[in-house]
């Protein structure tokens, strides 16, 4: 099912718009992730697609047909609520079987399918428990099974795995992905786990304050962020951002200048810009073209590697080192970046200066400055 949102606006208090003139098109069978900071309107968007909330303005189309007045029950969706919303009076099995019951699936088949779904989320042994007797993660899995069991045309997942441990999460991801592919279910996933979004989604819509900032494939979002906001948001640890100024095709930061690739960026003399570098793109040692010298401020161990927090130009940058990297706090550290791996943004508008970048409205002016 193709889902289109056209100029959707939603307000809870008639003063501020929680969702502000949103446009979004999700192709049939596509897997889209909604990403964005807490409170930006992801859940609200999803609930509008589900038909629970009605948009104040704008229209929603399913397969080209306007569905603003279609009731949720007729939209053939499955949904995991952020709050789970399990039926407290039903057992796990009945919770899962409930959507099937509504489809008038015969009892025997219904229970079989519900059991199957429960097995899938590894709850086969808890079928007769009430939700209140489950752990948080188990509840969430019931919600997941309930959403999937009826094989909906549109699957809405609002943080479906936030309370699951890593290995379970990976398994669940695989299951969702398998099912989605197999049945061609159009799926929208809200998640805070970028890796989840990256691995599962065909495209990611990054939201901010009720608007979509960029809607693109995970790789493009990662590699070619349209603006500094996206750049900062996507990728953990976040992209390192440093302010500078364009001086005749070069970038000047704190007296130092760096050559810039004119074919990649619009370089305007005197423009204040922001330089972005992903921690993963930074190499220890001056092996690449763009070179920095920093002071180690903190050395963090995260299992497979270490994160160096280094002070450069009074700003703290992060980069990775091997797990066996040893250094004193305060020691000097040299590092460098390939010119191809850097990002450049207009400081005033926040827009990417990349030549291929689309020029849109200037909505991010106020956020462009780095806090």
């Amino acid at each position, binding site marked *: 099912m193709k889902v289109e949102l056209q100029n959707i606006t939603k307000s809870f208090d008639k003063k501020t718009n929680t969702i502000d003139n949103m446009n979004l098109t999700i192709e049939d069978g596509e897997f889209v992730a909604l990403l964005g900071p807490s409170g930006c309107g992801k859940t609200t968007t999803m609930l509008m697609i589900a038909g629970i909330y009605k948009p104040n303005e704008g229209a929603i189309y*399913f*397969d080209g*047909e*306007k*569905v*603003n*007045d*279609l*009731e949720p029950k*007729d939209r053939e969706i499955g949904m995991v609520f952020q*709050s*789970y919303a*399990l039926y*407290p009076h039903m057992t796990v099995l009945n919770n899962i079987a409930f959507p099937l019951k509504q489809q008038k699936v015969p009892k025997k088949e219904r229970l079989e399918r519900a059991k199957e779904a429960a097995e899938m989320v590894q709850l086969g042994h808890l079928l007769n428990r009430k*939700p*209140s007797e*489950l752990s*948080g993660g188990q*509840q969430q899995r019931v919600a997941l099974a309930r959403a999937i069991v009826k094989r909906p045309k549109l699957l809405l997942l609002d943080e479906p795995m936030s309370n699951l441990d890593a290995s379970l999460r990976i398994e669940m991801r695989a299951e969702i992905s398998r099912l989605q592919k197999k049945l061609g279910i159009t799926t929208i996933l809200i998640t805070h786990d970028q890796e989840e979004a990256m691995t599962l989604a065909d495209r990611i819509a990054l939201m901010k304050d009720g608007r979509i900032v960029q809607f693109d494939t995970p790789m493009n979002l990662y590699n070619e962020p349209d603006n500094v906001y996206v750049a900062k948001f996507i990728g953990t640890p976040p992209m390192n951002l440093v302010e500078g100024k364009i001086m005749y095709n070069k970038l000047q930061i704190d007296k130092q200048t760096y050559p810039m690739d004119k074919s990649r960026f619009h370089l305007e003399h005197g423009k204040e810009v922001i330089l972005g570098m992903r921690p993963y793109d930074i190499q220890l040692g001056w092996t690449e073209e763009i070179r920095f010298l920093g002071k180690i401020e903190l050395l963090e161990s995260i299992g497979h590697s270490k994160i160096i927090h280094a002070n450069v130009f009074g700003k703290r940058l992060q980069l990775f080192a091997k797990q066996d990297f040893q250094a004193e706090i305060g020691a000097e550290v040299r590092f460098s970046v390939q010119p191809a791996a850097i990002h450049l943004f207009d400081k005033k508008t926040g827009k990417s200066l990349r030549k291929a970048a689309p020029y849109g409205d200037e909505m991010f002016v106020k956020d462009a400055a780095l806090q």
Partner: protein
Amino acid sequence: METAGKSVPTIPGNTFLYQLKRKLPYIISYGILAVTTLPVIFMYLWLIIQSFASNMKYGLIPEGFSLENWEFLWTNIVYKGAELPSIWTATWNSLFFAGMLTVLEVLIGVMAGYALSRLTFPGREQILKITMILHAFPSIALLIATFYILNFMSLYDSLFGVVLVKTALQIPMTTWIIKGFFDDVSWDLEWAGLIDGCSRIKVWFRIVLPQVKPGIASVSIFSFLSGWSEFLLLYTFIVSNENVTLASFLQRLTSDPNMVNYGVLSAISLFYLIPVLVFFIFTQKSLMKANVGGVKKV
């Protein structure tokens, strides 16, 4: 919106029939409400008209408008040769009695309801069962026996005694209702309160109680109502004359079926309705807003 070209729309959302079907339950429910409510509205409309009409034709058509029936508001009625006490005294007494009863009942009921819902102790089911079965005794059948108790405790002819009796008669109901509401409060909330430094009682009061506001709304309206209209107990257990309530005021006006002035009676019963009506609307408005959210409730 009819789509002329397409044969069968895949999404039924835009056909007239679908919209009709969607709205049908609502139309039907409004219909049912309207039809069933009409006679009630009619009855009370008639009561209102009667109180303002100087005479009624065919039992329902008013002839002339007058405020005569409402004179009790500013003068004391002289009925059958005796001057009745001021309606305001009666109103005040009723308010006092109903208020006292409501407070006592809701307080004790809410405490007991909590205990029965959320504390573990032996005999919980038995207490519930016994209080329910007690209700099977017609309260009037208990009057004589209750009299002996009151007399024994020197509470006969005391307003306080009547309040206690009335509370005792009502409290099982309150407790039962409120227990159901406590059952649905999320345990996490109570846990959170305990951890934030409350004792169990304080948690009950500060955290759990606000969650059962709709329940409290319903029990308080019923206890206020029953206090407001309480007649029999006061009438039976109070000898002294000073405690006239609105119910007994009305009773005086109807005590002699030969002498009932229906116009005045209608006016007074309307007057009688006002405080409960206000109380009802108030409790409904402020307490029916249930608190949900902030907890993943299961």
